[in-house]
């Protein structure tokens, strides 16, 4: 079996002889400069090497990973790749590792400089140099995987395409994630935490989390790539990811509270709901809301075609159903504790969903998601703030989830109103298959 063609293409593109020679020389020159400027101490070299890996890996690597997908669209070569015999996995790892190979080549020299500095210098400031290096390396990979995943999601969503802006956005998304993770590497090494009842050092937990989330980002990239290559996907992997998030966040929340703390379960549920809520809204806005696919989903539902249904159901719907199921479970288990809060939150989320769909199901849905963000911000923040400043504090219950029957009633009414609007628009615009083209060609 030969080398992955996509990986090889990236080697041709990235690993030119000129670059292979110049990169180590340039890096060596920088490290010598830092060494000399730092009065022949190696601290500066070590920090510079770590910073180099972080910047190269997370920023430049993220940009290259994002570019490996977005430039295919921009250069009109994406259809050729979609038509190839390459499997989604071959294409995913060929892009992820191939496009960033030169960055890792440079990182090897940085890591070598870091290692040499560690061996020859006094490093009381860096308590665990190996762990810090490992964290920076895995964070860089996480940044690249996140950048690749978000670029693929953007391609899958379609619509207007702005190469430079999108590339920058997804690079920053990956890099910010990486830098957030790396920041824990500089925390006190003795800082400990609990995940459920397991006691771990924060740096260890951060490292393990970064490894796991890198794996999820790669799995996510693979799934979206498979969809692009017309390979049928079901929602089960997304569902497992959601369950993982619940278990992960629940563990942090439970671990952070004393065991005898009152409401420990409810508070942990609130933490899990908050994170699932973020995932729900991220999925709602990043997925394509094609009315034709929704109609096909309706047909599959009516025909009890489970294969079709499981393929067509959007991720945000899966997350919403999971949240709803957890709310019901919590309500039953905890005897209705904070039930108004959770159920009102659920109905407000439903209202938001209907508004987003309402805008997307217009006849000209350009920038529908951007418009939806504006409307939702108005409803969730600006309007309540106006009422608050006008002295009507109680009105908050009409816009935000709260442990009050008024909030629940408001949520139900607003969701119902949004649903009616959505239904009318759906029937008018997309209730049936479009009529054949009648205009002159």
């Amino acid at each position, binding site marked *: 079996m030969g080398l992955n063609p996509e990986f090889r293409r990236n080697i*041709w593109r990235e690993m030119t002889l000129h670059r292979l020679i110049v990169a180590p020389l340039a890096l060596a020159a920088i490290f010598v400069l830092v060494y000399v400027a730092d009065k022949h101490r190696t601290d500066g070299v070590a920090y510079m090497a770590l910073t180099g890996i972080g910047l190269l890996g997370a920023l430049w690597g993220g940009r290259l990973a994002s570019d490996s997908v977005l430039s295919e669209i921009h250069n009109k*070569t994406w259809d050729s790749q979609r*038509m*190839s015999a390459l499997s989604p996995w071959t294409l995913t790892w060929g892009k992820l590792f191939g496009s960033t190979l030169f960055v890792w080549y440079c990182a090897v020299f940085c890591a070598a400089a870091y290692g040499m500095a560690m061996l020859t210098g006094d490093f009381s400031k860096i308590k665990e140099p190996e762990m810090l290096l490992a964290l920076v390396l895995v964070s860089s990979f996480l940044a690249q995987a996140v950048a690749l995943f978000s670029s693929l999601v953007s391609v899958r969503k379609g619509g207007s395409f702005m190469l430079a802006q999108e590339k920058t956005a997804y690079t920053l998304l990956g890099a910010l994630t990486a830098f957030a993770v790396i920041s824990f590497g500089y925390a006190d090494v003795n800082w400990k935490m609990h995940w459920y009842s397991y006691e771990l050092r924060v740096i260890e937990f951060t490292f393990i989390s970064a490894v796991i989330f890198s794996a999820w980002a790669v799995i996510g990239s693979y799934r979206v790539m498979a969809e692009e290559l*017309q390979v049928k996907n079901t929602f089960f992997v997304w569902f497992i990811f959601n369950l993982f998030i619940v278990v992960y966040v629940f563990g942090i929340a439970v671990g952070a509270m004393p065991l005898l703390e009152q409401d420990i379960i409810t508070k942990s549920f609130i933490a899990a709901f908050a994170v699932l809520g973020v995932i729900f809204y991220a999925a709602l806005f990043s997925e394509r809301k094609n009315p034709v696919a929704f109609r096909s989903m309706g047909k599959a539902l009516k025909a009890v075609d489970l294969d079709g249904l499981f393929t067509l159901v959007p991720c945000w719907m899966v997350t919403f159903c999971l949240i709803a199921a957890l709310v019901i479970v919590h309500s039953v288990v905890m005897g209705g504790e904070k039930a108004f809060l959770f159920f009102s939150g659920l109905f407000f989320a439903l209202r938001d969903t209907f508004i987003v769909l309402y805008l997307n199901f217009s006849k000209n849905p350009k920038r529908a998601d951007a418009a939806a963000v504006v409307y939702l911000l108005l409803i969730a923040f600006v309007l309540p703030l106006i009422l608050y400043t006008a002295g009507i504090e109680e009105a908050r219950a009409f816009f935000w989830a709260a442990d009050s029957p008024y909030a629940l009633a408001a949520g139900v009414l607003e969701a119902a109103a949004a649903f009616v609007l959505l239904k009318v628009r759906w029937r008018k615009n997309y209730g049936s298959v479009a009529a054949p*083209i009648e205009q002159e060609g």
Partner: protein
Amino acid sequence: MIEVDSLSFEYPGVLALDNVSLSIEKGSIAALVGPNGAGKTTLLRCMAALEHPIAGTVKIGGVDAHEDPRVCHKKIGYLRDIFGLYDDLSVERCITYAAASHGIADAALPEAVKKAAARLRIDNHLLAKAGVLSRGLRQRVAIAQAVVHEPAVLILDEPASGLDPEARHTLSGLFLELSGQGMTLIVSSHILTELEEYSTHMIILDKGRVVSSSGVSGKAVGDEGAYFTVELIAPHAALENFLLSVDGVSNVSVKPGGAVFMLRGDASTQAELLKRLVGQGFGVKGFYETRENMHESYLKKIKETRGGA
């Protein structure tokens, strides 16, 4: 080789393909023509298993394109209307990548690249960067990429747009060559005179529907009949009745100085009819198969469809 059955495709609010059915035989070159917005590109993309229809099926060599898209992709070469190349790679590497990504083993890559380059007459440009090539050469590299894995079906969307007349002529020759080697081609184009050079079939699409699917010389698909013209030295009143009395003759249309009619049968049937015409004293000065001009045929069909709509 290609069977499209009741295919419908909908963009939100627009039914781009409306119950399209057609059949394309192995080794033929089908010209897909129609006005802008007729659904040609959408149909080609559905055939290439790049888009998922709301109803109907596409079968490529018996494989359902939407059930097994990846299997179909191995059988198909596709060149879209606006295509791109990896500009920073050499032509050789571009074609090598295309070959490898279609599953050709490493050991067989140099030979496959050599063959594709020779076919497209770009062997002298293998070391040039794709980004510096002329429009015509880029087109040839793109086609070389599409055929390097020897697909059974080659789908080309506006392959000649932007090419000069000489390059177009070369392309026509290449299509005939590929067809001669057993490849089935579907070519979408607006340039009907050029399609006429190599197409064996013409499929007219209008408003998402197939208006006509026929041989370019007027043959109905799967029909052995062909149109013939008989020219007489002087008009003869009995010509129409005589022709209608002959077995295998239909659609007789008498014109000044002769008639056009459809005749079913082989060359000996044609010779027999000619012999009988001469024997009956019709004063035949010409007898030949009528090749309807593709452009005229296209306009006629479109006019008929719209007039009847």
